[in-house]
C-alpha cells in the first residue's frame, strides 16, 4: 500500500495575494517503506504539503490519503500512525534531553519500560548520550534539532515527516541522522523528508519530487531525474579551452577556475578525451541533483518571466 496518495491537492492561504496558491493541483504518490525526498526552492510549498499530510492544515481542494486513510474524514486513524518534526520546531526548553524524548513517547501512549529502552537506543544512535541529563535550554541550536529528530525517530510511527531535519547540523551529526533514518527504513517505516541539502536528498531518497510554486515539476528515482535533463553529464575543465570552443560540446559557462560544461554522454566523453590530450585538468561525471535543480527550476523561472512579459 502507498504511504501517501495526494490527488489534485490545492492550498490557498486566507491572506495570500490573489492568484497565489501554495499548492496548485498537486498529485503525488509516496510508496511505503522508503525515504521520499521533497525538494524545491524557498516558498515552493514543501512545508504546506507536509502540514496537510500530517493533519495540521486543511487543504483548500483535492484529496489526500495517508496509509489508506483519508486525512479529513479518518483523521484519528491517520494520527495514530504518524509523527512529525515541523520546520523550525524545538523541544520544550525546561526538559532534559532524556525527558524530552521519553515523555514524548509516554504522551503517545507507549509503556514506561519500552519508552525507556527506546530512549536509550536513540540517544546512543544520535550521539546524545553524553547530553542526556543536560537541560534543553543549555544546548546549541544543532543539538536541539537533533533532539527533535530523536523524539520522532524513537516513536513507533509508521510514517515520519521530517521538515528540514538537518538544517544547522554539522557534517558528522548529519550523517548520524542519516543513519537513524536508514534504520527506520530497515524497520519498514516510511520517511517523507524535505531538505535544501541536495546531496542529502539524493543519498537518502529512493524517490524524489521537485516542486515549484506549488506544482510538481519532476518526480522519480534520482536516476529518472537525471534522464529528464537535456544534458545528463557535467564536465569541468581548467585552461587550454575557450568558451566558444566548449560551446560546441554543450552548454558551457565560466566558473572559478575554468569552465563548467553540461553535455550528452558522448560529447562529455569526447571533451574529456580532448582535454586529457591537451594536458588540461578535467573532471567528468553524471550531473548531480543540484545541477538538475538549477537547470529545471532556472528554466521555469525564465519561462514564467517570458510569460509575464508576453502578458
Amino acid at each position, binding site marked *: 500500500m502507498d504511504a501517501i496518495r495526494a490527488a489534485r491537492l490545492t492550498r490557498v492561504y486566507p491572506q495570500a495575494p490573489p492568484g497565489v496558491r501554495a499548492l496548485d493541483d498537486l498529485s503525488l504518490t509516496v510508496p511505503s517503506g522508503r525515504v521520499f525526498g521533497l525538494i524545491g526552492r524557498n516558498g515552493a510549498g514543501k512545508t504546506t504539503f507536509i*502540514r496537510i499530510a*500530517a*493533519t*495540521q*492544515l*486543511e487543504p483548500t481542494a483535492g484529496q489526500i490519503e495517508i496509509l489508506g486513510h483519508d486525512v479529513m474524514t479518518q*483523521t*484519528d486513524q491517520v*494520527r*495514530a500512525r*504518524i*509523527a*512529525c*518534526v*515541523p*520546520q*523550525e*520546531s*524545538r*523541544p*520544550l*526548553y*525546561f*526538559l532534559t534531553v532524556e*525527558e524530552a524524548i521519553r*515523555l*514524548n513517547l*509516554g*504522551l*503517545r*501512549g507507549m509503556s514506561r519500560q519500552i519508552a525507556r529502552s527506546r530512549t536509550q537506543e536513540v540517544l546512543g544512535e544520535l550521539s546524545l548520550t553524553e547530553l542526556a541529563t543536560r*537541560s534543553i535550554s543549555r544546548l546549541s541550536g544543532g543539538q536541539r534539532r537533533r533532539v527533535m529528530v530523536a*523524539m520522532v525517530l524513537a*516513536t513507533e510511527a509508521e510514517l515520519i*515527516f521530517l521538515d528540514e531535519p538537518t538544517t544547522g547540523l554539522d557534517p558528522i551529526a548529519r550523517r548520524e541522522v542519516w543513519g537513524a533514518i536508514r534504520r527506520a527504513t530497515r524497520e519498514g517505516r516510511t520517511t517523507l523528508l524535505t531538505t535544501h541539502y541536495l546531496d542529502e536528498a539524493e543519498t537518502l531518497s529512493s524517490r524524489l519530487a521537485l516542486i515549484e510554486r506549488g506544482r510538481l515539476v519532476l518526480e522519480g528515482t534520482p536516476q529518472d531525474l537525471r534522464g529528464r535533463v537535456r544534458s545528463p553529464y557535467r564536465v569541468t575543465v581548467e585552461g587550454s579551452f575557450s568558451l566558444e570552443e566548449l560551446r560546441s560540446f554543450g552548454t558551457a559557462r565560466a566558473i572559478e577556475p575554468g569552465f563548467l560544461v553540461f553535455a550528452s554522454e558522448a560529447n562529455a566523453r569526447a571533451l574529456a578525451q580532448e582535454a586529457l590530450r591537451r594536458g588540461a585538468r578535467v573532471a567528468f561525471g553524471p550531473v548531480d541533483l543540484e545541477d538538475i535543480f538549477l537547470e529545471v527550476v532556472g528554466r521555469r523561472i525564465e519561462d514564467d518571466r517570458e510569460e509575464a512579459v508576453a502578458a
Partner: protein
Amino acid sequence: MSLRQQFQAIGTLVQLNGLIPIRAQPLYLLNLLASPLSFLFFIGIASGGRLLGYGVAGGMILTMLSVGTGLQSDLTHYRHDLKFQDVIVSSPVTAPAYLVGMALSEFVYSLPGMAVFLGIWAYEGWWSWTNAIVLVGALVLVWAFASTLGFTLATYFEDVRETFMFSPLISLGLSVLPPVYYPISSLPGWAQKIALFSPTTYAAQLVQGASGQVAPSFAGAVVDWVVLGGFTLALLLLATAKARWREP
C-alpha cells in the same frame, strides 16, 4: 488511543508542563500566589477584617481564572515559537486530552495559593461538607471554563504578545467588574444587570455562600448552578466547533 492511553497522555502533560518546570524553578509557584493574595490583603485591611470572607472567595476564583490565562499564554508560546501543537496534532494525542492535561498542569501552579485560601477558609470556621462540595464544584467549573477559553483563544493568537494584551482584559471582564471580590448588592442596579452576563458572578455567589458571606435561597443557588454549568458547557461546545486544532 485507548482510554488508558488518554489518561497516560494527560498524566504525562502534567509532569511535562507542571511538575518538571516547578522542580527546575520553584519560584514559578509564587507567580499565581501574588495577585490574589494582594487583593485579599487590601480588602482584609481596608475593611478591618470584615470583608475577609469576600477576599478569600474572590481570591480563589481569581486563582482559577489565572490558570486559564496562564494556559493561554503557555499554549500560544508553545504553538507559535516551538511548534509544539503541530507535534501533538500529528500524534495520537487528542485535542481534549491535550486541553485537560495542560489545564491540570497549570492548576499545579495554583496549589500554594489555594492552600493559603483554604487554610483561612477552614480557620474562619466555614468548613462543612455542604460548603466544601459547593466550593469545589464551583471552582472546578471556573477552572474548566477559564481553561477552555484560554485553550481556544491560544489556537488563534499569532504571537505571545497578543495574549499579554488580552489576559488583563479577560481578568477585568471576569474578575474585577463582576462582583467577585464584593457582594453583588454593592453594585448599583444597572451594573448588577450587566454583571449577570458574567459567569463569575454566579460562581462568586456560590463561593461566597460557601464562605459564610451570603445566605443564598435554594432557588438562587439552583439558578447559579444552572447558569454556571450552562456557560461552561456552551464554552466547551464553542471550543469543539471553533478551536483551531487543524489550521483551516
